[in-house]
Every structure is written in C-alpha cells, then in structure tokens.
C-alpha cells in the first residue's frame, strides 16, 4: 500500500466514522423537558458530525504528501505478537490470575521481540510480576490467583 492509498483509507475510515456518529445523533432521545431548549443532548453531536465529515473529506480528496511509512523496514510480526499477547492478557487475567498471566505475558513479549536467554525470560518475567503482586498486596490491593486459588483451597 502506498502512502497516498494509506492516507485515503484513513480519511475514508474517519469519514465513515463521522457519518455514523452524525446519523446516530438523530437517535439520541432528549427528554421532553428539553423540547423548547435551544440546546439538547443531541445538539453538540449534530455539530461535530458534519465538522468531522468535512475535514475528512478534505483529506480524502487531497491526501497530504508524506514520506513512505517505511513498511519495508517494519517488523509486523513482532508488533502483532505483542498485540496478540495483550489480547491473551485480557482473556487470561481473570482465569489464571495476576501473577501467572503477567509472567506469561512478559516472558512471551520478551521472546516475541527476540530475547532468547532463558534466565532473562524466566527471572525478569517472574521477578516483575511477583514484585508487582507483593507491592500491591502491601498496599491492600488484592490481586487474585484465578484458578490456582480454587485448586489450593
């Protein structure tokens, strides 16, 4: 994808977002008491929608020039790996608990970004997650252990 195509795609996405925002504004149900009022809950969104559409339309019609976004030199796999691990974190935190999820996230993150030393992977990941758990325990913030808590009890 060239820079211009990327610019157009982003402008189009924001245009559609603004259009959706504007259309949905008509569905905001202002209470009957505000019928005579010059300003209701839908007034501000009705002003912002067209503003967003106009500005994104300018960018769509005349996409700004800029340097290529350097796709060739980017490591998409590393970035996607980190995003995937964040998704894992959101999925696992309530199931596996704070310490295990955090340690797995960190070790996975280090590994995904190229760290291969087993001691660094294990020690830093476990050290940081246990350190956080201890710090928050001292502050009376309870971070549970998920399924492990049930197994132990």
């Amino acid at each position: 994808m060239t820079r211009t195509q990327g610019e157009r795609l982003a402008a189009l996405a924001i245009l559609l977002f603004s259009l959706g925002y504007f259309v949905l504004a008509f569905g905001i149900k202002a209470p009957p008491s505000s019928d005579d009022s010059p300003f209701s809950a839908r007034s501000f969104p009705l002003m912002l929608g067209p503003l967003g559409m106009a500005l994104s339309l300018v960018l769509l019609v005349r996409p700004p020039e800029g340097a290529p976004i350097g796709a060739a030199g980017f490591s998409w796999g590393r970035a996607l790996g980190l995003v995937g691990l964040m998704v894992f974190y959101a999925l696992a935190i309530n199931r596996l608990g704070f310490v295990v999820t955090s340690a797995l996230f960190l070790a996975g993150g280090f590994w995904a970004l190229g760290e291969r030393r087993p001691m660094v992977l294990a020690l830093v990941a476990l050290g940081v997650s246990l350190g956080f758990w201890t710090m928050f325990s001292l502050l009376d913030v309870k971070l549970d252990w998920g399924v492990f808590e049930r197994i132990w009890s």
Partner: protein
Amino acid sequence: MIEGLLTGLYGLMTPMNIGLLMMGCILGTFIGMMPGLGPVTAVSLLIPVVLTMQPASAMVLLASIYYGAMFGGSTASVLINAPGESSSVPTTFDGYPMAKRGEAGRALALCAWGSFVGGTVATLLLMLAAPTLASWALTFQAPEYFALMVLGLTAVAAFTESGGVIKALLMTVVGLMLATVGTDVADGVERYTFGIRDIADGLSFVLLAMAAFALSEAILAALRNEKVSEEAKKAARGDVGSLKLTADDIREVAPTMARSSLLGFVVGVLPGAGATIAAFMSYAVERNIATGKRREEFGKGSRRGVTAPETANNAAAGGAYVPLLTLGIPGSGTTAVILGALVALGVQPGPRLYVDQSAMFWTVVVSMYLGNLILLVINLPLIPYIARTLAIPEQILSPLIAFFCLVGVFLVSFNTFDLWLMIGLCVVCIGLRLLDYPMAPLLLGFVLGKLLEENLRRALLVNDGSFAFMWERPVTALLLAISIACVLAPMAMKLAGRRC
C-alpha cells in the same frame, strides 16, 4: 505571595510529598532518557498511580515526572544523538558534537544548569502571572470560557508538530466526539453507549491516554525494531567526563540563559506553542545574534547552542502551567494529560482552581522550585549511572511498557472490558500515528469536550439560542478571531511558500 509560598512549603513538606518529588524527578529522567519516550509517555504511565492520591500529591508527582523527563531527554540527545522527545532535538545540534569531542559531561552540565535556570525563572514568573491572570479570568462567563476552549483546541492543532493542520483539527473533532460517549449530564440521557453499561459514565481518560501515547509507543518501537546503538552501549558504561563548569563557561552562557528563560516562558504560556517551539526559537535566536567565531561554532559544539534550547524548553514547561492552572486550558499533550488527571481526581479546572485550591497551587509551585534543584543537585551527578538505562534492549523495554499500561488500566477498574477497549483504541492509534495523525489534539479534545459542550449550552441558553454572543461580546469575539487566525495562518504560510 509570601503567605502562599509558606502554605506551599507546609503542604510539600510531608514525607510522602518529598518522596514523590524525588521519585518523580529520578523516574522521569529514566523514562525521558529512553529514545522515543518523552514527558507525555512518562506522565501517561503514571496516571493510574496518581488516581489514588490527594490532588496536591498527584500534581507534585506529575510535575516532577514532567521535569525529569525533559531533563532525561536532553541526556539522550547529548550522549547518543537520539532525543527522547522533540523539544530536545535542537540540543543534539551542538550537544552531540561536544560529546564526540570528549566533552559529554560538560554538555550535560550545561543542559542541567540551563534546565535549572529556565525552570526556576519560569516558576517565579508563574507565581507572579497566575494570580493576575486568574483574577482577570474570574470575570469570564460561559461565552468567554467557550471561546477560550476553542482557542486552546485550535492553537494546539495549529502548532502541531506532525501531519498538518487539517489532520490535527480532525483529531480534535474525533476527541470531542469521544468525549460525548456516555450519559449527558444535563439531560441525563445516554449517548453512543449502545447499551454497554461499562461506558455509561463515558470512556476512561486513563485508557485513552495510555492507548494514544504509552502503549502505542511500545508497539511502534517493536514495529520499528531498533537495536541499541554502539553509542548507547558506550554511553551506558558511564564514561561522560567531568560534569563541572568553569567560570568561563558560566560567563559564556549566562546571557543565553536569561534570554532563553524569558523567551521559553512566553512561548510556553501561549496555548498550543510549548516546549518544542520554544527550544527551536531560542536556538535560532542565539545563532542569529551570535557574531564571528561564536556563530561559526553553532552546529559544531557551541556552548550557547546546547544551553539555549534546554533552558527554553524547561521554561516553556513551567510557562505551560500558567494557562493550565489559571484557565484550565492545557497548552500541550503533556499538560492535557495532567489536566485529565486533575479532572479524574475531581478537581474542577479553571480560574476557580487558584481560589478554591490555593493550597494545591502553592504546593505545586514550591515543588517546582525544589524539583529543579533536585534535578541539578541529585540527578546530574547520577547521570553516569542513570545512563545505563540507555543499554536496556528494546525487546525487554517494549513488553515492560505494555505490561505497565495493561496493569495500570486494569487496576483502576478491575474490568477486562477496559483492557479490550484500550487494545482496540491502541491499534487504531498506531494506524493513525503511522500516517502522522497527531495524538495530542485528540486527547485535548477529549479532555476539554465536556466542558466545551457545557459552556456552549450555557451560552446558548442565556442568549435564547442565538449565536450572536460570538461576535457581540468583545472578549469572546477576540478569542474566536485569534482561533480563526491560528487555523488560517499555517495554511496561508504554506500557500505563500508554494508561490515563492
């Protein structure tokens, strides 16, 4: 004023606040030193932590992190030619050549002294200017507030560092749109919640700040896959040379410090301008007024060239607190994050803040004096040790930053919905950042959105729905005229540039 300073001193002198001040200065230096991570990332990362604190303590920590990160940015500029943030870019022009000829310690000392003088002068001027500005702003009514916020938003968009004015304005509008999500306070109806209870109170400022700055920065660093340079490894060994200045150095840079402090403060006070413009302007001023041999030294390791931007960017950081604390208008991305934290802590920004929260105001002022001193007395000698962070490989750093963001957001609500929302927003922000859409206007729009809507509502209600207040009230008309000029000026300059 003396009474205010004593109040501030009394408020600051608790073990907790002093500890936070020292921690903020050192932690900010650490974070600011890492290439790509600047004050806005440093402040964003700390937001979840400060939400549990008293407003004064939170402000002390955030202000010290801000200063510390500015200081750290200059260190990376001098040692490895990689500024932590844009306001330290001009520091590389002469700081790095000095480091290459074995005078890294001297350049760092010039930065530290410049930062100290700039920060202290700015705090002094903040102390003098804030009460006057606040008492003037107390006469403002809803139309003036509305116009003031429009000015703040357009000025930040006009002075944006990347992307151009249209993109910045668009990001401001998107920020305003995001601010309308949740229950409308006046009418009590839900907007854009799609029945999701988790966003009935609106989107969380914390997760938006994290997604836009810290988390997307971590992912972008992973995407760019930058290795630790040989220079960074060398600098991390701590061999920077003497950190002392000679009498000749002081004589040489003293006038520069005075000029850059004043220039930086004035630029910092203007909404939207801020540290980067101040740093570049002061560098240009010093180069232009220099004559003969001094002028030839610029770009090759001039002492004035190192001192000017560092003095100006710290003075601008202090200046940015003037509109923030007296008008509730942040002038930059970093101060927008700080304002968001204040709002989240239940503090109503604006001129009443100086009256209602005067103890907090003075505590912050005194903490700024002390913070600048800490940076000079404690951080400067520690630079050889702090510089070791430059060797932290990116494969360790990025997951750690992502982890801090995830934990920070999760611990605020213990709700995984916030994590999902942050991840989604982060992906969108990465796409936008790759295309040079600036994030500061987005956050500023989000932070000011509710207040802007509320003041527009009041102004229209008082004026029976007529927009005539925009041109009939002199101050409102003036502020709106400046806003329009802010938007049109960069476009006109671009057009003129094309014709030349």
